[in-house]
């Protein structure tokens, strides 16, 4: 399926650049929203949940940074999959007129979101610098921070796979978008973004269910590197990597099987 990617690499580039440009074109603050948005939402979340989950839990080391790590990854996941989901229906006018490899649209949307996500990581850098220099609650900066790209790459593969599946489904069923919005909202509460799974007072069954969420593994790996400065638990690595590969294979297969029928439903 990806054999003509080389020929259409210019198109891929143009769409990625376009997505990033258009997103910030008509706002006064432009690209600064990439920093402002996670900063402001993290402040709100710290104010709301800080007293309930943050202050009593010494394991978290630094609650604002803990929260920001989770939120950044969650936000990338939901934004990129939602954009990928809508990408085919939004490009209907092109797909109906000219031959283009259709997977380019979900792929380009995940890539452009990944780039803005990488830019937004500067906020995290700012947090780490601030808390280490100016407060008595420093994060644990070690060479392991250099491994932080590993969970991000796995997350990228996961988003691409799920994005391909969703974009295919949304061509045939328009109401998938609303269902997926609800799913994303649930995911926010079932991923340990503002709480710590280990200090929840829940039955072992519920805890196992929470840990079965691949986002749990990814967020935990990322926090191990960035916040706690230690090696991740290898179970997380293998579990999330396996999940991402399965998703990518499934997404490619479903998309490949159904792509010739898109035109009849757009």
């Amino acid at each position: 399926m990806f054999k003509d990617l080389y020929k259409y690499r210019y198109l891929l580039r143009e769409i990625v650049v376009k997505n990033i440009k258009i997103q910030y074109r008509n706002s006064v603050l432009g690209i600064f929203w990439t920093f402002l948005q996670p900063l402001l939402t993290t402040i709100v979340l710290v104010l709301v949940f800080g007293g309930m989950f943050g202050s009593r839990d010494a394991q978290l080391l630094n609650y604002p940074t803990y929260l920001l790590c989770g939120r950044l990854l969650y936000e990338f996941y939901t934004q990129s999959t939602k954009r990928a989901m809508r990408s085919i229906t939004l490009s209907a006018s092109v797909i109906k007129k000219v031959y283009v490899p259709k997977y380019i649209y979900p792929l380009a949307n995940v890539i452009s979101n990944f780039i803005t996500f990488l830019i937004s990581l500067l906020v995290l850098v700012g947090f780490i610098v601030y808390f280490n220099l100016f407060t008595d609650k420093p994060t644990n900066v070690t060479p392991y921070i250099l491994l932080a790209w590993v969970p991000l790459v796995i997350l990228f593969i996961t988003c691409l796979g799920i994005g391909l599946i969703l974009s295919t489904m949304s061509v045939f069923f328009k109401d998938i978008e609303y269902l997926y919005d609800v799913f994303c909202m649930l995911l926010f509460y079932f991923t340990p973004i503002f709480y710590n799974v280990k200090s929840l007072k829940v039955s072992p069954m519920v805890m196992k269910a929470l840990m079965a969420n691949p986002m749990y593994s990814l967020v935990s790996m990322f926090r191990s590197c960035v916040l706690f400065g230690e090696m991740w638990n290898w179970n997380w690595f293998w579990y999330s990597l396996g999940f991402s590969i399965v998703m990518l294979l499934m997404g490619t297969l479903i998309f490949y099987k159904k792509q010739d029928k898109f035109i009849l439903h757009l």
Partner: protein
Amino acid sequence: MSEPAIVLDNVSMMFNLNKEKIDNLKEYIIKFFKGQLNFSEFWALRDISFTVEKGERLGILGFNGAGKSTLLKVIAGVMKPTTGTVKREGVLAPLLELGAGFDMNYSGRENIFLYGATMGYSRKYIQSKYDEILSFCELENFIEAPVKNYSSGMRARLGFAIATAVDPEILIVDEVLSVGDAKFRIKSEAKIQSMFDKGVTVLFVSHNTDQVRRLCNNAIILDHGRIIASGTADEVCEIYEEMIHNSKK
């Protein structure tokens, strides 16, 4: 000059016509359990086979609903035929619904590169054609404005300028070339004529037999998804005129 540019081999296209269009999961599940998912088959194209040589100009005639647009979509690679194969040699530029690939929030200049990339061209290549495109569409003063503020004529002019500037080898022309005002029409017809002289392969869809006679050397007639006549433009146009005459009775 006997290299084929387009080869169609037993191409058929079948659509599943549903009585009502189902596009959401809720309805689909309800209909599925009630057993109401009936489809009826509709063959838009049946066993179409023909070869277009390089430099040949083929006119495609036919009444509304004969399958002309479906045929063009199959040749352009937008639709995959249910059975049969389509082979194409060279870059294809569809001059139909010009500017359909534009992004409305993007400026004219940015859209030139986006549209070029959609056809598979690099930024560098489009840059080398940029001045030619700009002077041809005469939109120098508006090129930095977003395309959503363009009139439909301006959009079509920009689309035409890009699609013809890249030296395509196969040109798909739909109906009369009614792009923009009279002045631009003359210019675009001259451009098309110069591409003819360079030996571009043309597929021309029309109802107008005079135009087909003037522009094409060969022609086919489509009726209910089948080719019912093919030959030189003059012969086929005569048959078509007779068909029109008979259907009026």
